[in-house]
């Protein structure tokens, strides 16, 4: 239904500085697909959605909608937007109209529908999103979740072929996220084609037929929820979906400030709620730096924590080496025993750049 080729978007300031938010986006979206777009902030997820319905017209590339190039001059933009609904993060209900009028206003203006019929349809849609009781209320009388449900009904009133959801639950109180998500689930079950920019990973995993992981202005990885969430191919995807936090030190000489390393590890553990692992991390660090790694400068010391998998690891990496430092004859067995006792697991592996010793703690 939608084919996107080499889509790019550059924002230019009046002073000539510019930012390439979308660099080269390519994808194919079929009817009935529910696609969640995930990725770190500032990688162009919302810009991508807004480029699709030309709220932020792209600066390059091609968008084919049902085989027609919508970027061609003279393409009926208003008709396109009627077929391509949009739900915003901040709802954007018309503040001066009642809930019912919010839904009937645009159909009455652009389609030849009678007021009676428009109101009948609007009431049916309100019932569908559970908001029919509030038909006569003003938007200011509603909670965030209720507003977003009305916004979805308003978008449905135009009988769109696809709906673009731009972070539909990001502005909501956590208690209201569920009601909006259940309306969206219902739509997905009915076969509506949906593109959803979201930060709710579990929701994305459950509702989607496909996931786009966006990073650095492109679709970095594209696949089923299982592929993206359980077996991501690329490391940036993995870092993002497993929500991996890192603390990195480049230890280059015996003069390196190890007290500072301990201070920062302390802050890191408190921040990610793993204070219980601080003691172990400190002990392993002390043992390793004083014995195993003592004569191997420079090396990299890295503390990582995956919030999704709740796994914490302490890595020691040395470039251009293919033998584990632990296997060196200088390492005395007592130290080895202590290291084994402190960690849950020790993984020794070669990487593209050298060798890594990973302590799971």
């Amino acid at each position: 239904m939608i084919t996107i080729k080499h889509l790019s978007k550059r924002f230019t300031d009046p002073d000539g500085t510019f930012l390439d938010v979308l660099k080269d986006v390519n994808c194919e979206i079929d009817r009935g697909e529910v696609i969640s777009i995930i990725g770190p902030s500032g990688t162009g997820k919302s810009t991508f959605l807004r480029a699709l319905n030309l709220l932020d017209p792209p600066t390059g590339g091609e968008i084919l909608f049902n085989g027609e190039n919508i970027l061609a001059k003279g393409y009926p933009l208003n008709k396109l937007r009627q077929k391509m609904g949009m739900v915003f993060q901040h709802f954007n209900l018309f503040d001066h109209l009642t809930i019912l009028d919010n839904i009937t206003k645009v159909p009455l203006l652009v389609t030849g529908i009678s007021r009676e019929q428009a109101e009948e349809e609007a009431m049916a849609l309100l019932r569908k999103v559970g908001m029919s009781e509030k038909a006569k209320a003003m938007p200011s009388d509603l909670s965030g979740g209720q507003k977003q449900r009305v916004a979805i009904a308003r978008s449905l009133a135009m009988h769109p072929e696809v709906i673009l959801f731009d972070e539909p639950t990001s502005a909501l109180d956590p208690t209201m996220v569920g009601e909006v998500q259940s309306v969206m689930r219902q739509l997905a079950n009915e076969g509506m084609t949906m593109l959803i920019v979201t930060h709710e990973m579990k929701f994305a995993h459950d509702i989607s037929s496909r996931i786009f992981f966006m990073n650095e202005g492109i679709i970095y990885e594209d696949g089923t929820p299982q592929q993206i969430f359980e077996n991501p191919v690329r490391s940036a995807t993995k870092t993002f979906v497993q929500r991996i936090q890192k603390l990195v030190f480049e230890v280059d000489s015996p003069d390196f400030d190890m007290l500072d390393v301990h201070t920062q590890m302390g802050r890191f553990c408190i921040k990610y709620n793993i204070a219980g692992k601080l003691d172990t991390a400190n002990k392993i660090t002390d043992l390793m730096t004083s014995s195993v790694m003592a004569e191997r400068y420079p090396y990299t010391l890295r503390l990582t924590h995956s919030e999704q998998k709740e796994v914490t690891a302490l890595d020691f990496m040395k470039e251009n080496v293919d033998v584990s430092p632990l296997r060196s004859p200088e390492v005395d067995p007592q130290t080895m025993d202590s290291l084994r006792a402190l960690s849950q697991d020790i993984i020794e592996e070669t990487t593209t750049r050298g060798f890594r010793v990973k302590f799971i703690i």
Partner: protein
Amino acid sequence: MFVLAAVILLTSCGSDDKDLQNLHSEADLAGHRVACTSGTVYDLMLSSRTDIEKAVFNTHTDCISALLEGHIDVYVDDDCLIPPDEMKRLGIRLAFRGEENFPCGMVFRKEVSGIRDSLSFFIDSLRATGELQRIYDRWFLNETPSKVPMPDLGPVPTGNPIIIGEVADIPPVAFPKEKEWRGLEPELMERFSRYIGRPVEFKYIPMGSAVASLQAGNIEMFGGGIFITEERLKTLDFASSHFSAHPGYFVKDGTVKMHGGFGHRIKNAIYNNLIVENRWRSITDGLWETLKISILSILLGSLIGAGICWMRMSRHKWIYTIAKIYIDLMRGIPMLVFLMIMFYVVLSGMGLSATFVAVVAFALNFAAYVSEMFRTAIMAVGKGQTEAGLALGLSRWQTFIHIIAPQALQNVMPVYKGEAVSLVKNTSIVGYIAIQDLTRASDMIRNRTFDAFFPLLIVTILYFIIAWLLGKLLDLTVKSSTKK
């Protein structure tokens, strides 16, 4: 007893009735508080006296009010200024007449000789036959000149009228009554009209803007007891003098006492200010004029303001620069100055009515202010509202009209209402371009009754009611526009 004596002493100090009884010549003025109107020969005369306390007021009405209130002892002006019947009613008497003799004439602009020469010839011939003296006597020697009727002079000639400004509103010189102008000057000019075969039309013009009006060609000539002085002859021309004025020294008549209770005085005030000579008609006519100018200016000004607002929000640099310059310019010019510039310079000589010019001037000024209000009100409507409209498939124009404008209207209403009310109040300056609005109506009644309080009270109440009703009307407009 001591307290009572002190009060009597305090209240009587300064204006000793006995002292005023002995006022017979200019020498007797020494030590008194003497008032005159600014810019008159009397102003100059009093300046040379160091033995008196001089007070200068803008209008003769203010002088008389001050005299009646006891702020001054003596008021010097033309002896014909207050007719005998008025003096009696007000409790004023003419202490004595000065010896000076001030010839008065109709004023023309320089280098326009045609009508002026005919008028001079006409006046000179009336004087020769003694007719001028008879006309003078009929108006000036009458105890109650305001009741003297105009003589029947036969049918009015047809054709292009000669427009005559009158700065006076004083019997017996010239005064409007029952839709016509009466007095010495109107009679003289009506006679001249028959002589020259063209109709004449009178227009009240304040002294402050009479010369500008003359130079701009809005009037052919003006009168109202204008003294022919050396200084004026340098820039203006006069027709032959048609009468002479003498200085009159007016004092409060101590023998007349205010009588009657509060109720009686209210009844008198209503009678004198409203009932006599159908004076309420000038109030209703003035009210209509004020309403007309206000409403048309608000409507036209809002339309222009919307246009300026659109220009100001334009993406083209030169379009918004023009709008910005316009706004800054309009906000920097005082409304009165702008009104005078429009009437006497920009739109003069095009035969446009003063009311039309006032509406245009006020609308242009109003537009500058409300355009900025519209702009901030539109910008206050969140960007998301526009995006929602567009995303649902409305065009930019539809989004603006159906989504943005109704919300902007709600935003702008409180300040817009204030600006509209302030416009209504500002229209009180249109008297400067000879429009008889509500304020001018109260001045006209004040000129006749010298009662400062009552006419001002009435127009105050009327202005307040207009402002209040306007606010309600605007509220209703918003309600009905957002209900849809």
